[in-house]
């Protein structure tokens, strides 16, 4: 006999997570809370991938990795890293010391900013007197010739065939430019003064964006040899963390400020993008250390990863929140690690830790052998309004057929005792008989089998309350899940008077 029930569908969760609203104000497409989960392009929520060591042996006796990157030098793709006081060629995962005679001062906060300037890697950290150069091959790193115009530059850009360096030791508000086509020639007056401490440089469209906390300034070419660049303040807000500036498709620039993450599209205004992170997430960000936050654009998934210090007194970046440019939503955080630098290597996010390793993220289903604690919580929705009591019957969940992995499904509501049920992420009992067709299918050899990529499972719901919500979680090593949506079956009871708040 069929069950006389109404259905409330939660998901796909294309709106991502919203930490600024109570669960009761979040709709079926939104998430109230999550950790170590990703929102996919169809709005499905899946446990994030793990990370593994890129370099098998720790660099420089386990020193902090303050810079890393991948770029083509002398026609060869190279991976480099700076760990402690040494510069390494880490191509292929084997670290070779290429420090040579350059001076690198170790320190967790002595992080580097780098660019490919033509055919040369140039990096600066605002601490060491001169920038570092590297031409790849078997060369050692060298010292940038800046004609002794300045020392200890912090920010770097390569634009209009010139190298640009900002916030040097004597003038924090100054940005220097090299001669065109020559990164070693610096005119005595070839600089721009902005009046405020420069916090970052980033080419943007036909301009170089110079960030100060008080605004974004642009330098644009004039075509005039005497005054080759025009300086103009565009906005009244700029970043406080130059490594967090990320340019994304659609001619947009994202960056971190003390109260959140902003977007600049080239006009006279900036727009706060991270309202969804306010309150329950951003309130716990250690803003005193935000200047050391950094970000990374992950093109394959059209995601921007922001590495932030989350927690009272948290000095290192231990939390990643992700902005999906495809879905225009937020998800995360990812945690269970601390990072000091990040870059895209082999199209995947990589990040430097504090123990001499580059970690390859988006790899495997564990965090270098540790479990990933993945969970997410839906909105707390009253399908027929706050005044109508519902009896919650069961939930039918659509998930990907991924293996014998148990996902805990917890029901939560004010008037309902939290209850945990279990869903197994495969066809119960006989995975093999439902194996998917794939590229290994061979005519006259392979068995033709049904293509089951998604499955459904039912879990019990309990209690009486106008609203309810679900929490999905899996904290087991080498296990994952992909939940596409869930339908909560309920029976509307009607309007009933509660004797008290909560359980009765």
């Amino acid at each position, binding site marked *: 006999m069929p069950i006389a029930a109404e259905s409330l569908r939660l998901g796909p969760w294309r709106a991502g997570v919203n930490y600024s609203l109570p669960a009761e104000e979040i709709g079926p497409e939104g998430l109230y809370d999550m950790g170590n989960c990703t929102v996919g392009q169809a709005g499905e929520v899946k446990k994030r991938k793990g990370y593994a060591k890129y370099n098998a042996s720790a660099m420089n006796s386990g020193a902090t990795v303050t810079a890393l990157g991948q770029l083509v030098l002398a026609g060869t793709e190279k991976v480099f890293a700076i760990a402690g006081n040494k510069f390494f060629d880490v191509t292929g995962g084997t670290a070779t010391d290429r420090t040579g005679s350059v001076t690198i001062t170790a320190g967790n906060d002595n992080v580097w900013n780098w660019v490919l300037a033509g055919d040369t890697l140039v990096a600066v950290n605002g601490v060491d007197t001169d920038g570092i150069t590297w031409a790849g091959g078997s060369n050692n790193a060298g010292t940038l010739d800046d004609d002794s115009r300045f020392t200890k530059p912090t920010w770097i850009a390569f634009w209009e065939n010139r190298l640009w360096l900002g916030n040097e030791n004597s003038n924090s508000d100054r940005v220097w430019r090299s001669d065109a086509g020559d990164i070693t020639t610096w005119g005595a007056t070839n600089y721009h003064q902005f009046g405020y401490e420069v916090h970052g440089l980033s080419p943007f469209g036909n301009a170089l964006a110079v960030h100060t906390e008080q605004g974004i300034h642009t330098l644009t070419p004039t075509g005039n040899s005497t005054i080759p660049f025009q300086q103009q303040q565009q906005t009244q807000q700029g970043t406080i963390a130059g490594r967090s500036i990320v340019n994304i498709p659609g001619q947009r620039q994202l960056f971190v400020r003390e109260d959140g993450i902003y977007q600049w599209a080239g006009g006279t205004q900036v727009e706060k993008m991270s309202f969804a992170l306010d309150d329950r997430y951003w309130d716990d960000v250690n803003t005193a250390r935000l200047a050391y936050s950094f970000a990374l654009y992950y093109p394959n998934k059209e995601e921007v990863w922001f590495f932030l210090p989350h927690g009272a007194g948290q000095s290192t970046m231990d939390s990643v929140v992700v902005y999906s440019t495809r879905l225009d939503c937020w998800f995360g955080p990812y945690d269970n690690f601390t990072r000091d630098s990040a870059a895209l290597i082999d199209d995947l996010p990589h990040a430097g830790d504090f123990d001499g390793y580059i970690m390859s993220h988006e790899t495997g289903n564990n965090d270098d052998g540790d479990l990933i604690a993945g969970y997410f919580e839906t909105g707390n929705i009253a399908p027929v309004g706050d005044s109508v*009591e519902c*009896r*919650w*019957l069961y939930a039918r969940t659509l998930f990907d057929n991924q293996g014998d992995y148990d996902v805990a499904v917890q029901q939560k509501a004010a008037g*309902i*005792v939290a*209850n945990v049920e279990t869903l197994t992420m495969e066809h119960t009992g006989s995975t093999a008989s439902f194996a998917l067709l794939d590229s290994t299918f061979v005519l006259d050899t392979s068995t033709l089998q049904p293509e089951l990529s998604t499955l459904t499972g039912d879990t019990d*719901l*309990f*209690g*009486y309350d106008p609203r309810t919500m679900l929490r999905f979680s899996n904290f087991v090593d080498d296990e994952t899940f992909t939940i596409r949506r869930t339908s909560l079956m309920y*029976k509307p*009871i*009607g*309007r*009933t008077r509660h004797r008290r708040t909560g*359980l*009765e």
Partner: protein
Amino acid sequence: MTNIEVMQAALRRVGLNTSASTFKDGARSYLNMVGKDIQNREKWNWMFKASTFSTSNGTQTYSLASDAATPLSFRNTTENHVIIIMSTQDLDAADPDHSISGDPRWAVIDGVDSSGYVQVSLYPKPDSTDTIAYRYYRLVPDFVEANDNSSLNGYYSPIIQPALVYGIAALYKQEKGDDEGAMADQREMERVIAVASRQNANVQGNRTYRMRRSDDRASGQFSYYPQEGSLS
């Protein structure tokens, strides 16, 4: 089944968490309420019990067992004779100062003691130690949390126990406003009680017999012959 099994089965039907004390407390209250309803539907065979007490020289009044609701009969097993139930008025008329002692032949249902237990007075007042056996219709006490893991078999026949599940569920659903669901469970409860009632009627024990027809040739039949004729 144990109390908790009955309560949890009912909570599952209602759709409530079966381990939360709030809901178990509610289910236990309803178990006690439904139990009283069922106990008093009819004279259930499994509600009859027997016990004994001992008399002592010079003591006239005795308390019965704590679960004795309705005393039915008494007998002196030491002296091997029955004790007839009489009224308090007859006792007072026969022995106004309650001073006569001897081998008690009558028993008076004499209210309840300070604990609420039914008490009886014997007449004449016993002058020796005898064992008085008695039968009674019992009362099932209200269950508390400490009884959760006790078996119900000592209180309710297994055949009636499902009615407790449905009865609890019906009352709980009413509380939650689910009248439709409550009626469904109420129907189930009545169905189980009806089955148990038929079974109870077939027990050849403490049942009430209808007077027999005169032509069934059984001894002691009731005979009634309408006389033919006319009044003149």
